[in-house]
């Protein structure tokens, strides 16, 4: 009966889209968590909303305008962080409110009600078009290649910016790259889990993975695996029990976090608390 859903072209496309979102969101999300910018995805999601509305207003594909506006937002965030002394959380607040206000305002100008934005806010993976899917796949591949291929560099920049700079790494470029990749990932995930929930898929699998991992590499790989499973399983479950795919995916990811946290607690209880060896004075 599970195979039955593969008979529907829209379900096949939904599964492919889920596969890309599930892999890419934690692939870049790991770096956001490492930099303690977990909510950046959410902030850029709100900015992408302005992009969607701009697409509706100008009759350009919303996915395209969302990518462009979110990328510009990402660059603006890094610029604000680097050149002004605005703290990270204030920058995020600016994004949240600016993005929502811009989105609703532009959608209104386009003669659309808030309802037109709904499918972008919460995702509508089963209505994805073939051209959307190609864009999602192409952007997904770019994000994956860079997020995995540049892992040593991105890791170093997020771990210790000062040391990375002395090592000769172009720290500002990599910081902007991370933000831009996050923006692209968000727009890729817009149709699957929606703009309001995409941040969950960037952060929750990472939090789940690190309950059970000890190295950066294993956390990164495990988070991508967990994201993939949650996204694909979410689409299947939502089809079987007739729920909305976006929230189903996110709730599955959260459920795996609870299981992992319980497992970790169990393991720690069984082993007894690990005592640090020869702690220096």
């Amino acid at each position, binding site marked *: 009966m599970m195979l039955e859903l593969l008979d529907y072209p829209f379900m096949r496309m939904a599964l492919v889209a889920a596969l890309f979102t599930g892999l890419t969101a934690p692939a870049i999300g*790991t770096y956001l*968590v*490492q*930099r*303690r910018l*977990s909510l950046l995805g959410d902030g850029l999601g709100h900015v992408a909303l302005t992009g969607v509305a701009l697409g509706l207003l100008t009759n350009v594909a919303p996915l395209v305008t969302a990518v462009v506006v979110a990328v510009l937002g990402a660059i603006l965030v890094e610029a604000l962080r680097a050149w002004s002394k605005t703290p990270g959380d204030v920058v995020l607040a600016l994004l949240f409110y600016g993005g929502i206000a811009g989105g609703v305002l532009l959608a209104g100008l386009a003669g659309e009600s808030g309802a037109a934005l709904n499918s972008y806010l919460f995702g509508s993976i089963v209505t994805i078009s073939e051209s959307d899917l190609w864009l999602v796949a192409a952007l997904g591949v770019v994000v994956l290649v860079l997020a995995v*291929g*540049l892992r*040593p*560099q991105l*890791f*170093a920049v*997020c*771990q*210790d910016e*000062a*040391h*990375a*700079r*002395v*090592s*000769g*790494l172009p720290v500002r470029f990599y910081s902007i790259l991370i933000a831009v990749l996050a923006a692209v990932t968000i727009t890729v995930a817009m149709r699957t889990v929606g703009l309001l929930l995409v941040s969950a898929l960037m952060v929750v699998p*990472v939090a789940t993975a*690190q309950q059970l*991992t*000890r*190295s*950066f*590499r294993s*956390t*990164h790989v495990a988070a991508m695996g967990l994201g993939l499973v949650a996204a694909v399983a979410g689409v299947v479950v939502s089809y079987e029990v007739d729920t909305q795919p976006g929230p189903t995916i996110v709730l599955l990811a959260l459920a795996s976090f609870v299981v992992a946290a319980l497992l970790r607690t169990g393991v720690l209880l069984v082993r007894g608390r*690990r005592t*640090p*060896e020869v*702690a*220096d*004075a």
Partner: protein
Amino acid sequence: MTTAEPLTVRGLDVRLDGRPVLAGVDLTVGSGELVALLGANGSGKSTLVKTAVGLLPASGGSVELFGTPLSRFHDHARLGYVPQRSGAAPGVPATVTEVVLSGRLSRRRLMTRPGRADRAAAERAIEQVGMSDLRRRPVAELSGGQHQRVLIARALAGEPELLVMDEPTAGVDRHHTAAIAELVGELTASGTAVLLVAHDLGPVEPFVDRAVVLRDGHVVYDGSCGGVRDDMHHDHAHHAHPKVVDPADVVPTKGVW
């Protein structure tokens, strides 16, 4: 390869937020030389090393690495840097080996996995600071002193010709401080130039070729260790000069050195 001194600082002025922190500082570190930079908190030690490695801009004077002005210096593998440990821990776990391997980045190409030479250098550096048993341990689970030793290993892994260390033994216990002092001595004996910011000389003293003392952003002494008087680099209640406070120099934990 140039034969110029690894580090030459001339007439360096640095202002932070408009306030002068360093004024007219001269400093050289030659090959195989261990120079200790001493001074009270707020004297500008950290600002000097951060400017020397390019983390802070100079407002006057010059910094040359291996005879090349800092702005045109791109041979990053020749420079090793041990920053002061920051309080903020990253949000994702990373093992000792992963952190130390990032010390090889200036020698690695993009989109490649670490090669055999990279792994061997990282392993050797971890062994040199006595952390081999803990190399798979997440750094967040280490004590302050152990973490500090990881940062030293990261700099050593790059096999630098000039090693700049900012209070590298802050929080490190006596036993390991002595071991690190020996290690620094061996490095300089094999030709590495070392600039070491220190609070007190301690066990590293026998290996120090020259001590430079900063006070209120000026060099007040440059010579052998024997000539350093305690009152030069320690705070006293009767301190006559108005102090220039450098936020970069305010360290919560004081090193043994």
